[in-house]
Every structure is written in structure tokens, then in C-alpha cells.
């Protein structure tokens, strides 16, 4: 199960992670809906690009620009959070959405927890695989912690001050000092 488009849905994608004795060149990518590491994609591009369905995932220390011009080839791009405190994935997502033109499913994987989901959704993630030991229905609540935001990001192209008429000192009418 994952969270996608603000709902808990079933999911049959498999995230491929290399074990210590496997290399990007030699690992066998099983058939089916597989999300492969960026390095596997780069090493086995010739074989993989003919697949009907394919996903790729980026580690937090990898650059999204590596996928420049290729993002349309994937049904899903995932970004791994090795620890939830590693915030590089937020800028990776921002760059994928805002600068590399990716419009498909963008999934947060790894140490994904309820209290990060609101921020993740703002920088362009629309799918979340919360850590398996956590209740996914509980995690879903994290998407609605706030109903208003100040600044622009992927989900909101206008800052609050361009979007709404904000009260000033002359219009507030309640300044009773």
C-alpha cells in the first residue's frame, strides 16, 4: 500500500535495491513493474528502455540532472530518504518538477514519516511509501496539517501575498491600541 493522490491505494511496484555483492552492470532486473536505482538505469539503459513500464529511483546524494531529457521514459521516479532528517530529497523533487519537466508520479521512499508528508507534497511528491512499521492511514493525516502557506514551491506558484488580499493596518479595522 502507498499513499497516492491523497488516498491509500494498493501498489505493485517493486523497488530494486542492490545488495553488497551486486553491481549496476551485473544485477538482473526482474520482469514486471520495477523501480531501478539510477546507476542500474545508466548501466543497462540499452536493455531497460524498451520496457513498457519502468521506474527509477535517486539516492539523496545523486543529481536529478542525470535524468535530463529522459524523465518522460519513466512511469514513476522515486527519491530515497535514507534518514528523514536528510533533506536533500526535497531539492531533488523541486528540480525534477520545476526544472526537468517531470510530470509523472514522484514517489518518496525510505524513511518516510507522517510529519514530513506535508512538506514533501509541497515540493512535488504525489506518492508516498511510508515506513512499513508505521500506520499508513495515520500517515495520510500528515498531508492536511496546514491549510495555508506563505511561500511558493512546486504545489503553489504564487506566494500568499500575490494570491490573496491580506489585511493591512489601514484595512484591518481592529487595531485598538
Amino acid at each position: 500500500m502507498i499513499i497516492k493522490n491523497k488516498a491509500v491505494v494498493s501498489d505493485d511496484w517493486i523497488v530494486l535495491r542492490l545488495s553488497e555483492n551486486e553491481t549496476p552492470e551485473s544485477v538482473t532486473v526482474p520482469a514486471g513493474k520495477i523501480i531501478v536505482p539510477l546507476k542500474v538505469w545508466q548501466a543497462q539503459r540499452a536493455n531497460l528502455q524498451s520496457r513498457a513500464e519502468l521506474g527509477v529511483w535517486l539516492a539523496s546524494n545523486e543529481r536529478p540532472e542525470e535524468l535530463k531529457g529522459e524523465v518522460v521514459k519513466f512511469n514513476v521516479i522515486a527519491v530515497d530518504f535514507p534518514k528523514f532528517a536528510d533533506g536533500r530529497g526535497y531539492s531533488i523533487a523541486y528540480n525534477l518538477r520545476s526544472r526537468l519537466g517531470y510530470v509523472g508520479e514522484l514517489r518518496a521512499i525510505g524513511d518516510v514519516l507522517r510529519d514530513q508528508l506535508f512538506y514533501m507534497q509541497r515540493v512535488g511528491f504525489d506518492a508516498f511509501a511510508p515506513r512499513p512499521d508505521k500506520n499508513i492511514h495515520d500517515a495520510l493525516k500528515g498531508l492536511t496539517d496546514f491549510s495555508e502557506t506563505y511561500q511558493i514551491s512546486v504545489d503553489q506558484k504564487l506566494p500568499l501575498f500575490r494570491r490573496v488580499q491580506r489585511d493591512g493596518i489601514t484595512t484591518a479595522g481592529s487595531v485598538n491600541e
Partner: protein
Amino acid sequence: MYKYDVYDHQIVDERVAQYRDQVRRRLSDELTEDEFRPLRLQNGLYMQIHAYMLRIAVPYGLVSSAQMRMLAHIARKYDRGYGHFTTRQNLQFNWLKLEDTPDILADLATVEMHGIQTSGNCIRNITSDEYAGVAADEIIDPRPYAEILRQWSTFHPEFAFLPRKFKIAINGAAEDRAAIAVHDIGLSVLKNEQGEIGFRVLVGGGTARTPIIASEICGFLPWQHVLTYIESIMRVYNQYGRRDNMYKSRIKILVKAIGIEEFRRQVEADWADIKNGPGTLTVEELNRVAAYFTAPAYETLPANDPGVASFKTENKAFANWLQRNVKPHKIPGYAVVVLSLKKTGIAPGDASAEQMDVVADLADRFSFGELRVTHKQNLVLADVKQSELINLWKESAEHGMASPNIGLLTDIICCPGADFCTLAFARSIPLAKMIAERFDNLDFLHDIGEIELNMSGCVNACGHNHIGHIGVIGVDKKDGGEWYQVSVGGAQGNDAVIGKIIGPSFNFQQMPEVIDRLLQVYMRERIEEELFIDTARRIGMTPFKEYVYATPINAEDTVDKSAYGFISKPDNYTVQRKSRF
């Protein structure tokens, strides 16, 4: 000052609800302590030695009388009747229960206050000049920009999990009173030759383990671009700042590693496609926010009040206070008054609930209901009629806030130290008290004149020791004892410089004598009206070093430590370091 509109209220109220649920999940063990720690830190909640500590944001140091009364209420209801004003213009409560913190934040929200991003690896509370709006040397009031940056940085989704904490300071006057050169980003508002307003942008300054003066990344950034330009700085740092070693993870290390030219190139490359985009600040929004910071209804008054002039000649104590604690105001007949939180015997920056209520009343009666917290841990009434100075002096003196020591040796900047903080190697508050008592002689203090003595209990340097004229820092020694390293010649402001360590460290008992010897060198070497820092700059560190180490300093434990301990310590006191935060 700024007042929340419906959106500000909504965001802060939703934060309280979110945090309340996080605490509920922690108390029911749905969240482990490891998972909860970053969440509570982003709300300013630390687990200290004795209890939870909550750091409350005082945006750019500005606080209303209503807010101050709420702080007094919280001190009484949830704490032990006092709070501690910090070097980042915030307020800390030291004795809280976790279960109470959601209610405290709900109380704070009613007066437009919060603990958002007062800790954690995110953009922290933005600090500024405590004399903003009233300083004679002000070019542009920095407060509207500070408020706009506060809102922009609040819950910024991309920059909540940075490699390390991130501090922005902004100054709008000729003299830098915001220490912008030792911040991750320092902004200085200025006008160019065409009269346009913009910012000089500094990046990569800081103290702690690797003290560095910030580098200029942009000489003039038109004000409209401040949000997008900072966004690009943050994005480069978020991606490339080191995350493998917390001591090398501040932006200063990144800037130093790749050089300011390369860092600038990366920022400008990132900025290229968002410059002039919708994130650009509008004149309408600037005007909306700036309208909250317009001058209060000043009266037309004579430049100098005759009552003050005559009373000063007959009352030495008042004259001393006038000289040290009263600063010039840009409007004739008004004055800026600093209420000292540095009374000898009191921990620097501490204020009791009673004092908080008193200053709220003083603000209402004498200063349009507003106060400022200074980064030197005092309070300021910024708009006082000179004709009220005598009354204000008497009333603040009755409540222990008129020590005439602003800018003098006993106006010590000091972190909480090992009495409270799990990070500290050594105590700082008792040391500050011991030094203050040793030099508690007004004539001597005034003879020494302006000097900045800054003390930190550890390498994290919350007490700004590196930029103190005399800096004292607790150092880690294998024996577990309390040892202090001393530096001379540091300075903040326009000529910010990192002080130089004079030599091997001293123990707790030796420190007052060390300070005494440094002062003796100054008094021997000074020329006429020269200040300590000027003498130090002229003669260098060597004469200080030679004299301090010339003869042994008695290190025996002859002082009754308990007299100085804020919390009574056992005789064989050693610092117990616990896990971080």
C-alpha cells in the same frame, strides 16, 4: 509592530494543533524519542539536564506589552517564575513539563507568538538591530524586511531539513548592531547612488568551532529580489552542504571549501530561472508590512529636557544611568532606554515574572507599549520622552533593572552553560556572577569604560565569545573539570574580527584574576580615551599574554562555590555530559 492577519493566525493555530498531536503520539509511544526529537526541536523544545526547555521566538527582538505579560503568566503557571532572554533575542523557559507545552504554545498563539523554528536544522528566528526605527544612523528600517523574511521562512517546505541550523541577521543602519558578519546570511540594507534600496548580502559567517567572518556574495541586491536570491542560496546549501559531520555542516564550511566565487556562481546559476518570477517581492506587500512599522505619534518637544539636566547634576546615580543606559533618539526630546538585565548576582539575561509585568507596564506608560530584546540580553524601551526619564529610572531601579552598566564589563553576554545545557563543558552563569562581583565597583567599571566580555560554556559559542573584546569559552578536557580558554581582541560590528586565544586554559577559580590581569595591561598601555578594544588592536595580543602568564595564579578552591552556583552543586562537582539535545 506587525499584527497577524487571519492567515498568520491560521498558520500558527494549525501549528499548535499539529504539535499537540505530535506530543500525544510521543506520550503514547507512537513516536520514538529519536523520531520526536527533530519535531520538538523545530518547535524550540529541548530536553535539558533538569527539564524541558522551550525557546520562544521573539521575531527580530520586538515584543509588545501584551506579549510580555503572557510571558510572565507562562513563567508563573508553568515554570519557576522566571525566563531567560538569549543572545538571539529570544526567550527561554527552563523548567517545563512536556505535557504542558501544547497548552503553553496555545497561550502564546493568543498573543501572536510561537516557538516555530527556534531550533532544529532549519531557518531560525531572524535577528536585527535593537534600535531599528529609532536610531539616528539608520538608513532604512530593517523590520519590514525581517517580518517578510520571517513569513517566507516559516515552514518553507524545501528547507526544513538542512544540513545544519541556519541563521539570518539584518541590519539597516550605518553601524552594524546585528552582528551580521557572524551569521549564515547577513543582510545590510543600503541605498545605491541612484537612491534605490537594496541589500549587501554576506554569506558563510559564524562562530563556534570554526569562527569565520562572512564573505560578500552580492554587493547590491535590489530589495525585490531578496526572497528569491536567498531561496537560491538555501537550495545550493541544502544540496551541497556536508551532512557527514555535524561540525562541518554549516554553510560557512561549504563556502570556504569551494570558495566564494564558485559558491556565487552556483547561486546565480540556480537563481537565473526564478529571478523576476512570482516569488519576487512586490511593492504592495512591502508597503503593507512596512505600514506596521511607521513611527508612533511623537510629540513636538524641546531637544533637551531641563529637568533631566538639573537632576543629573544633583544625583550621581542618575547621571551614571543616563550616561550608560540612555541612548540618543532620532526625534528631539525622546530617548532610547536600555533596562539592564545584568544586575550583579543575577544570571545575565534572566527576568522574573514580576519584572516582566513591570516592564510591560513601563512600556505601556512610557514607550507606546513596545519593548525590544537585545542580543546583549537586555531590554529596550525605544521611545521614551526625556521628561519621563527620572520616573522611569526610579521605577526600573526599584525592580533591579537600572544597573548603570550597559556596555561595561559587567554587561556580560553569557549562555546558560552547564547548569542547564547538555552541550556545555563548563558553567558560564556562575562564572559571570563571580566576575561581576569581583568588579562590582562603579567607579572602576566606568574607568574601564566600554568593553565586551562574552562567555560561552562550550565550543558552540552561544555566548558570542569569539567576537567579545574578551572572550571566555569552556573547553573539553579529559579530566572532566571546568576549564576556560580566553581570547582577546574580538569585535562585532562593522569591523568584526575573531579574537585570538592567549594561551593554555584556566580553571574556574583562576578566571577573575585572569580578567583582572587583562584589565591591568589595558590600564597600563591605554592612551588617553582609548577603549580596551582599541588598545588591544594597537598593541596586539602579546603584552596581554605575557602579563597573564608571568606569575602563577592561585588555583586553589578558596571560594565558596555554592555561593555562585545557580543550582547547588556537590563539592566534587564535575560536568556531566549527556547525550546531545
